[in-house]
């Protein structure tokens, strides 16, 4: 088979593999498939992973790296250049890289779930949902047009809702899945607004594949038709970019729609591990990368600002959380902030590379936390942990490696490090250039690189904190510690695989693939992207030399040691610090997640309640008033009719009766009861009759 055709076939096979297993599991009855559901889903997912790895290797051997676009006309749309609503796939080097990452992580999460979900009454359904979730994400990765992407986008929203609310008997998951769904809908509305702007300008051409030669050329033609150029873009293009990015804000849990992600912890831990790495949150970043060529400098600034706010804010919250999963959740927010900031700042390759490296180590971290929670009988508060390393050595080592990875550890004074080091350092380098290039912002532009640099150190600290609190020191809860045990192999194996990936991801050709995809996306057509252009060699690996990794190389070790020393004995130092006046207010503020939930409660929910009250008043007085008026009118009419009935109809009846009565009264006077009177009448009448008869007879001729 021709290599490009082979890649396409394999990608489609990888896409439909999880759908197949989901259909089998969901449609089969409990008796047919319960225990086997986990094995089936994992096996099929492994098949999908093999397909995508073969596709990736085949792609690496290609000479022609132009995107593979397949279009199957589905619904004819007359009057547009596209002519059809296409179904199909779009495969470029970014797609192959993300495809391999998603299928690989999904397979490991499936494997992990076999151990973690063991004994759950809805064991089979969990795997059905998980496979469907993976299918939706793969659909986003492979979608050829913006519309098709949106369809899978919503599928991801739905399946995440099902998974977060998997334990729907409990109050927490119920609220969390609703919150995730609503927050995503808010973001999706922005997506639709952006989509609508593009639709207004492009018409049916929005259905063209999102590549050069497809939708992007149509946008360019629309821009030039209005007398603008891609170097001097019109306002609507900026707004469309920001609008579509709003979808990414929802899915990737960026400020201000970030509040759903920490609450999504209520779902089973395998769900957290896949949501926080390969799917869902990755979808937002991926979408932003897909629409990268149409993002204007204004949109870039917006995206970078959102990313910056998110990464700083989330890191501060991660510092004070005591729930192990919440720390990881806020660290995910922070790392997503890095990616979004990177995309906004033009460090395209490193942002997406960070997406992949982060997926590996964050998935591993969540699986380790899941194992700890599993071993600690669902105690999630790190204050009750301590010393678990001795009981769970494999989990501790995996967690430790991934802590180093997320910290961006490197050998001091060299540029040799673990995967997170390369990706995060590249993003910071990109932001340095962006901050310098954004001269219109003045010295404020420096925030764009100061923020991520400082947060890099904070990241090391809070990860060291969670590691020390969980695995090091003396057991703080004897009972919990005694019952803790290492988890079965189905759970440790994925952890180990992911930890290995977290170390070596940088040596794999992911970065190379993504860099190849960048010209295809950010090539000649987007030469107007002034900040990126000014970056020059932002994505040049040599950029590490410009970054102060000398400081960083020592810095991460200092922060790591500080974190471990401070938290090894538990929370006692932290509590003392948190009690200092001034700091205690900050602590309280961060501990309550900056009061975002309360703010949204007050504003959004408050406004809704106010509106509801007003509507209730309208309902009560206007609508009910009208109903009551109708009732009143009917009643008056009925009264009138009743009166008619009473007076006229009854009157006629009563009148007849009265006439009968009075007639009877008159006639009864003749009924004297006296016999002689009767006889008199008798004879008198007889006489009269006789006289009449005689007279008639006599008179008649």
């Amino acid at each position: 088979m021709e290599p490009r055709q082979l890649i396409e076939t394999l990608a489609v096979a990888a896409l439909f593999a999880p759908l197949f297993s989901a259909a089998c599991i969901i449609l089969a009855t409990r008796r047919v498939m319960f225990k086997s559901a986990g094995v089936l889903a994992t096996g099929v997912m492994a098949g999908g992973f093999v397909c995508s790895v073969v596709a990736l290797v085949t792609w690496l051997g290609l000479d022609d790296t132009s995107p593979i676009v397949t279009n199957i006309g589905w619904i004819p749309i007359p009057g547009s250049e596209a002519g059809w609503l296409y179904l199909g796939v779009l495969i470029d080097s970014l797609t192959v890289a993300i495809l391999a990452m998603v299928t690989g992580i999904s397979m490991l999460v499936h494997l992990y779930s076999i151990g973690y979900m063991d004994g759950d009454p809805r064991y089979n359904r969990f795997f059905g949902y998980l496979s469907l979730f993976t299918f939706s994400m793969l659909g986003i990765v492979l979608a050829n047009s913006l519309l098709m992407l949106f369809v899978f986008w919503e599928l991801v929203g739905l399946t995440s809702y099902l998974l977060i609310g998997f334990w729907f008997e409990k109050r927490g998951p119920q609220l969390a899945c609703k919150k995730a769904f609503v927050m995503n809908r808010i973001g999706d509305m922005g997506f639709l607004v952006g989509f609508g702007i593009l639709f207004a300008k492009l018409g049916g051409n929005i259905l063209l594949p999102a590549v050069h030669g497809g939708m992007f050329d149509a946008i360019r033609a629309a821009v030039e038709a209005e007398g603008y150029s891609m170097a001097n873009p019109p306002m609507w293009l900026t707004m469309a970019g920001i609008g579509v990015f709003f979808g990414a804000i929802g899915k990737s849990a960026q400020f201000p729609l970030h509040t759903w992600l920490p609450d999504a912890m209520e779902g089973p831990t395998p769900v957290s591990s896949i949501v926080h790495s390969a799917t869902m949150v990755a979808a937002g970043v991926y979408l932003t990368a897909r629409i990268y060529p149409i993002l204007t400098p204004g949109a870039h600034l917006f995206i970078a600002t959102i990313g910056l706010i998110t990464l700083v804010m989330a890191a501060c919250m991660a510092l004070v959380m005591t729930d192990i999963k919440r720390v990881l959740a806020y660290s995910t927010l922070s790392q997503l902030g890095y990616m979004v900031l990177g995309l906004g700042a033009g460090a395209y390759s490193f942002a997406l590379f960070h997406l992949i490296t982060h997926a590996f180590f964050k998935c591993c971290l969540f699986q380790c936390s899941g194992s700890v929670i599993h071993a600690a009988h669902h105690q999630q508060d790190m204050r009750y942990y301590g010393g678990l390393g001795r009981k769970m050595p494999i989990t501790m080592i995996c967690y430790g490696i991934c802590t180093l990875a997320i910290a961006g550890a490197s050998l001091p004074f060299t540029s040799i490090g673990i995967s997170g080091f390369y990706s995060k350092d590249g993003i910071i380098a990109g932001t340095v250039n962006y901050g310098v290039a954004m001269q219109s912002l003045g010295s404020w532009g420096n925030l764009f690189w100061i923020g991520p640099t400082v947060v890099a150190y904070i990241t090391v600290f809070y990860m060291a904190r969670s590691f020390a609190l969980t695995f090091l020191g003396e057991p703080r809860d004897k009972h919990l510690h005694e019952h803790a045990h290492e988890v079965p192999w189905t759970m440790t194996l994925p952890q180990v695989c992911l930890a290995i990936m977290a170390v070596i991801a940088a040596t794999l050709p992911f970065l190379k693939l993504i860099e190849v995809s960048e010209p295809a996306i950010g090539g000649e057509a987007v030469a107007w992207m002034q900040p990126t252009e000014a970056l020059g060699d932002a994505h040049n690996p040599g950029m590490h030399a410009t970054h102060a990794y000398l400081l960083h190389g020592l810095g991460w070790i200092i922060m790591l040691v500080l974190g471990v020393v401070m938290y090894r004995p538990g929370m006692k130092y932290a509590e003392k610090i948190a009690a200092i006046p001034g700091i205690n207010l900050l602590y309280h503020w961060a501990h309550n997640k900056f009061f975002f939930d309360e703010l949204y409660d007050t504003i959004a929910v408050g406004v809704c309640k106010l509106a509801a009250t007003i509507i209730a008043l309208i309902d009560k007085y206007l609508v009910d008033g009208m109903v009551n008026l109708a009732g009143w009118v009917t009643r008056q009419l009925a009264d009138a009719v009743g009166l008619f009935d009473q007076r006229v109809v009854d009157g006629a009846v009563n009148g007849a009766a009265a006439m009968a009565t009075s007639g009877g009264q008159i006639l009864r006077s003749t009924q004297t009861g006296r016999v002689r009177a009767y006889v008199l009448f008798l004879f008198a009448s007889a006489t009269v009759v006789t006289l009449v008869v005689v007279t008639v007879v006599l008179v008649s001729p």
Partner: protein
Amino acid sequence: MTHPALDIGLTHYLLVTTTLVAAGIATILTKRNAIGILIGVELVLNAAAINLVAYNHFAWSAGKGGPAIEGVMFTAFIIVLAAAEAAVALAIVLNYYNNFSSVDVDQADSLSG
């Protein structure tokens, strides 16, 4: 040949019976005593009986050209009927007396409307 004044014809009979009927009706109307009324009724009945006999003799027999007995038969019926009527009437009067302790018909106005 008899005196014309003694030549009694149908008219004379009718005059007598008319007088009788008038007397009977007057008796019925004026008497308050139930027995008296009964006597009045008997007068009326006998007037009718005389009428039938008279017509039989003067009009019916003459019309047929020979003696006829139809009127006489009816008269016999009337006599029998009067006897039966008297028996029934006297039973009524007896009952009436039992109820009202009187034979005064004016006191019996219970059926007054």
